């Protein structure tokens, strides 16, 4: 393992401290926790938005804390859901009297820990609602599995629900728009190389020098198939075709696109992927309203990318356009 760290056991603590030191205008840390909240929280009269999950996906989720997006983000250990007490601290710290919405990525641990935190908060009289993001089309949605995973499409939920919350909307309204985004966003990823959880010291899986895995999850969960590596255009086509099929998108629709890097893939390659994606969408007469290319939800130093598509209507477009000012996302 070759990493720029001090102690494997302290990476999360030291990362949170460094992050907060970098962005004092945007965020502050709830003392003695790994919870990052807006510098001006709790914002009175506004629904609070809390997300989080295992660390290793930076800038998710702390990078999206700020005006117009999240009020709080909880950082668990690397690739490990945060604990209920930590999520509860975040809920308390951002509650401005209008209730708190939890934005949870669909993983067994995350769902259980956030649910327990919601139960603790409700016992203290804080109104809490939950949405579960499951945008990854790589795994089949079936009653026999845990269901689809939540990946980079989650950023669109943060952005749009955050924008509506900023207008003073009710908890029910913010929850409804978050669910609307979840219904209209799909993603799929692929990996070229594995990643190493610092405390584990070795890669969680291996991919051969000339192989890639289509549909791999952001913690290295298996995808659809392991094949020989192919050119970017073919990879983009495989991912986007599956996303489009699942979204059942009509020609002349309007979408937002996210080309997300997993940590070790340079922007140059992400733009190459987007070149193909934009061509394919044009051929299908799908209007690209806005494209986001960069690192939004990474997997430590995994090489690869994910493609997300959000189908937009006028309401969602307006909320996507609204102001946001966070360390990792600005409009």
């Amino acid at each position: 393992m070759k990493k720029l760290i001090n102690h494997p056991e302290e990476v999360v603590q030291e990362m949170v401290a460094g992050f907060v030191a970098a962005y004092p205008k945007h965020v502050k840390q709830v003392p003695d926790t790994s919870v990052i909240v807006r510098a001006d929280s709790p914002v009175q009269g506004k629904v609070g938005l809390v997300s989080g999950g295992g660390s290793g996906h930076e800038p998710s989720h702390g990078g999206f804390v700020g005006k117009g997006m999240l009020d709080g983000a909880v950082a668990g250990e690397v690739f490990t859901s945060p604990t209920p007490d930590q999520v509860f601290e975040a809920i308390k710290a951002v509650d401005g009297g209008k209730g708190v919405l939890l934005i949870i990525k669909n993983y067994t641990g995350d769902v259980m820990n956030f649910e327990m935190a919601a139960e603790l908060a409700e016992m203290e009289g804080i109104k809490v609602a939950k949405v579960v993001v499951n945008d990854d089309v790589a795994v089949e949605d079936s009653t026999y599995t845990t269901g689809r995973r939540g990946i980079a499409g989650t950023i669109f939920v943060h952005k749009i629900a955050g924008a509506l919350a900023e207008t003073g909307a009710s908890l029910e309204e913010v929850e409804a728009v978050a669910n609307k985004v979840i219904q209209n966003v799909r993603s799929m990823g692929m990996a070229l190389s594995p990643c190493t959880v610092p405390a584990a010291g070795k890669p969680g899986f291996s991919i051969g020098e000339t192989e890639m895995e289509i549909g791999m999850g952001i913690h290295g969960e298996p995808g659809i198939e392991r094949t020989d590596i192919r050119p970017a255009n073919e990879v983009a086509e495989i991912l986007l075709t599956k996303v489009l099929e699942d979204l059942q998108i009509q020609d002349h629709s309007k979408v937002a696109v996210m080309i997300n890097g997993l940590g070790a893939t340079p922007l140059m390659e992400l733009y190459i992927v987007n070149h193909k994606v934009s061509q394919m969408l044009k051929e299908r007469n799908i209007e690209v309203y806005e494209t986001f290319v960069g690192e939004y939800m990474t997997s430590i130093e995994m090489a690869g990318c994910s493609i997300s598509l959000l189908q937009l209507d006028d309401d969602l477009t307006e909320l996507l356009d609204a102001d946001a000012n966070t360390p990792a996302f600005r409009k």
Partner: protein
Amino acid sequence: MMAVGINEMKTWLKNLNERIQQNKMYLTELDQAIGDGDHGLNMARGFQEVRKKIEGTDYDHLGSLFKDTGMTLLSKVGGASGPLFGTAFLKASGVLNGKTTMTVADLGQALESALDGIKMRGKAQLHDKTMIDVWEPVVLYVKANEEEMDWDRLIALAEEKMEATKELEAKKGRASYLGKRSIGHIDPGAASSAYLFTELATVIKGANIT
């Protein structure tokens, strides 16, 4: 004849912690095969904290020992194991509240309540390739043999049921994404649950519970 009390249960948790520390990388390897590879690390971190917590605390009754254990696991383990093992100990603490010693019947009730908690939290059933595949048969065995417990048989049962998860297809947790590819691997939560029961039986055998 003596009953099991606070000291024996503290010894159990201490031994269990040692077993988990020794098998930290093994549990993590099991999890890397079908999950996300953090089970050993998380359990080791959590039970180390449990050991620290209970070592420096005097307990009046078993309920408070189990409650402290559950709360520590809940706040230190993370992942899915934190809520599951944490809930198990909290549920058991409810049954053991006020008791300074316990009989096999008390233990059976506490374990049954813990199992109900695990099922409620994880929404899993027998044969989903989870910790329940060890917990349920062990709890049924204790409940059915309250009069004459064979602790060696319980140890064998826990290990046998852990091994049997190898042949199951995962229906819950991250392993479920693998579908049939999850077959051939022991479930990590079943493995750590087997440690829990084998260490428990070993301590109780020595204490000669009735």
